């Protein structure tokens, strides 16, 4: 067994919609171990993305604790948290979120602008990241000149360029066709197995979940099911995944 990397203790997250208070996560406890590839599933509004945002340090809980490695990120100040994110988190979005006026190279370089690296070192890092995702020949292309799959791979290169501890992906295949989605999933799997990145992915896609080493199902802010995928035969996996898929609103 590897060491715990993320420990979430009694997390409560509430939102206010006018006078109404909405509890999105309710006393949630959750642990992720180093090198795991975790798929978070569940119906819309179950709190998957909220949990992902809290672990990534881009949102704060109302109560409870979140430890990532030795850092209690729920107690860090806004500035410290920003610095922590730049060193430890790589974030992949459903809609890629590339900056349209920057080339693929410049988009991937963005997180490195916060580091003390010089221009030539930054170039080296960007080239490595883009070659890992197979886009070394698209460096000078603007997002509008790339396909959706290529854009997402540039976004993955941007997420890994600082060599972060954790990769967080929020529906990374949600906007892609089947072929591009497959390529992205293979890439994430490779980052996990070959580069030992701990990955948490929010998905509605059973194929994406099947790449994970662990399936976590949330419902109404509560952890309903936590299953290592290796313990599931294909029939059981299909059944488990279908529960999640059925729960997805049409």
């Amino acid at each position: 067994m590897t060491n715990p990397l993320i420990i979430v203790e009694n997390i409560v997250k509430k939102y206010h919609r006018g006078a109404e208070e909405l509890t999105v996560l309710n006393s949630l406890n959750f642990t992720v171990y180093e090198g795991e590839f975790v798929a978070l599933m569940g119906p819309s509004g179950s709190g998957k993305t909220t949990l992902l945002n809290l672990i990534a340090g881009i949102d704060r809980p109302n109560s409870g604790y979140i430890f990532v490695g030795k850092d209690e990120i729920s107690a860090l100040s806004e500035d410290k948290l920003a610095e922590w994110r730049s060193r430890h988190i790589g974030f992949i979005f459903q809609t890629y979120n590339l900056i349209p006026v920057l080339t693929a190279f410049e988009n991937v370089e963005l997180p490195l602008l916060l580091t003390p690296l010089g221009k030539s070192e930054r170039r080296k890092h960007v080239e490595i990241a883009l070659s890992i995702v197979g886009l070394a020949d698209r460096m000078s292309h603007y997002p509008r000149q790339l396909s959706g799959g290529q854009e997402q791979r540039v976004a993955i290169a941007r997420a890994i360029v600082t060599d972060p501890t954790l990769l967080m992906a929020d529906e990374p295949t949600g906007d892609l066709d089947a072929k591009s989605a497959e390529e992205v999933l293979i890439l994430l799997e490779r980052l996990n197995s070959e580069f030992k990145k701990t990955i948490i992915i929010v998905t509605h896609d059973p194929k994406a979940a099947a790449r994970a080493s662990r399936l976590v199902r949330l419902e109404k802010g509560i952890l309903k099911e936590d299953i290592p995928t290796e313990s599931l035969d294909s029939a059981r996996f299909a059944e488990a995944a279908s529960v999640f898929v059925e729960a997805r609103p049409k």
Partner: protein
Amino acid sequence: MKLLPLILKNVFRKKARAILTIGSIILPLLVICLMGTFLRLLDRPDPAETRGMFRIVTRHKVGLASPLPMSYAEKIRQLDGAFAVTKFNWFGGKYIDNSARNFFARFAVEPETLVQVFDDATITQGSATDWFNDRAGSLVGEDLMKKFGWRIGDQIVLIGDIYPVTIQLTIRAVYQLPDGDSDALFFNREYLEEALPSFQGKVGTIWTKCRDGAAATRLSDEIDQMFENSPYPTKTETEKAFQMGFVSMLGNVKLLITSLGTIVVFVILLIAANTMALSARERIREIALLRTLGFSRVTILMLTLGESLMLALFGGILGLGLFVVGFRPLKASLINTPLSGFATAMTLFPEVLLLGLVITIFVGLFSGLVPAIQASMRPITEGLRHIG
């Protein structure tokens, strides 16, 4: 500095909008520089103070149209601290025609005392003696000589309007004043007195060169007190105050120009602020992304402010550059207008350019301030959800 390319890309993200905003900074800035030059000319240091000339001017208390008795000049000359005294009479009249192009200041004066009071003037062509010796001679400013292409010995005919007489003058000497205002013509008052006996015994203004600054201050009061109860009460002031008086005839020009300038700055500020607000609103999601990547609130604030500052600087530097390049042609074009007096004295004042730069930086920083604060303070999750 690493973020500069990102700032530049954002500035020109929407090229048409950036160019229009830059244009809307350039044009008002040109107006501001022109207004600043005019204000600076009004505020020029008193030559009497800077060059130790200590000149004061006495006129009728009612106004310049009312003459003073010539005997006043002799009384002033006898006062302690009066170093030299000379008399001026505005001749007016017309040269060729009444067009603005052919308008310039023409005075009947006392040649020998004029050069004593204006001993900072340099005779650049001809000689003062030649002028003294020719009753129909004239002393002409260097700028006028250039404007009309005159030469020593040329004949100038002035047709009187206030004084019903036509006089024919010969250019005998050319003068240059250190402050550049060398655009008047002077001729011997004896010529006018002979041609028009009714002119005798009257002077428009009396110019006194005082021994020092203290004497200038004291004599201003002393002269006015001396003539206070006479039929011709006087008003005495420094040379600068006297010259300013002409401008103040138009009302409080300084206040007017300053108010207009402030409005123009405010308008630029609103235009630039609108551009920045639009730009920041379109990029809410991008800013949330940058913060997800680890950009701190301060860095986002700097990025947004840097963008507005850069936009303003593009406009500001282009505007100031255009002002510098276009200054000479502008000056030349104003020479032949009723603003010729202003145009002749126009100089590229470094402080006006500095003012333009300060206004540019002010506009840059303040136009971006509110969008920058909003961008840096908005929660990341809210920004990521934003559909722009």
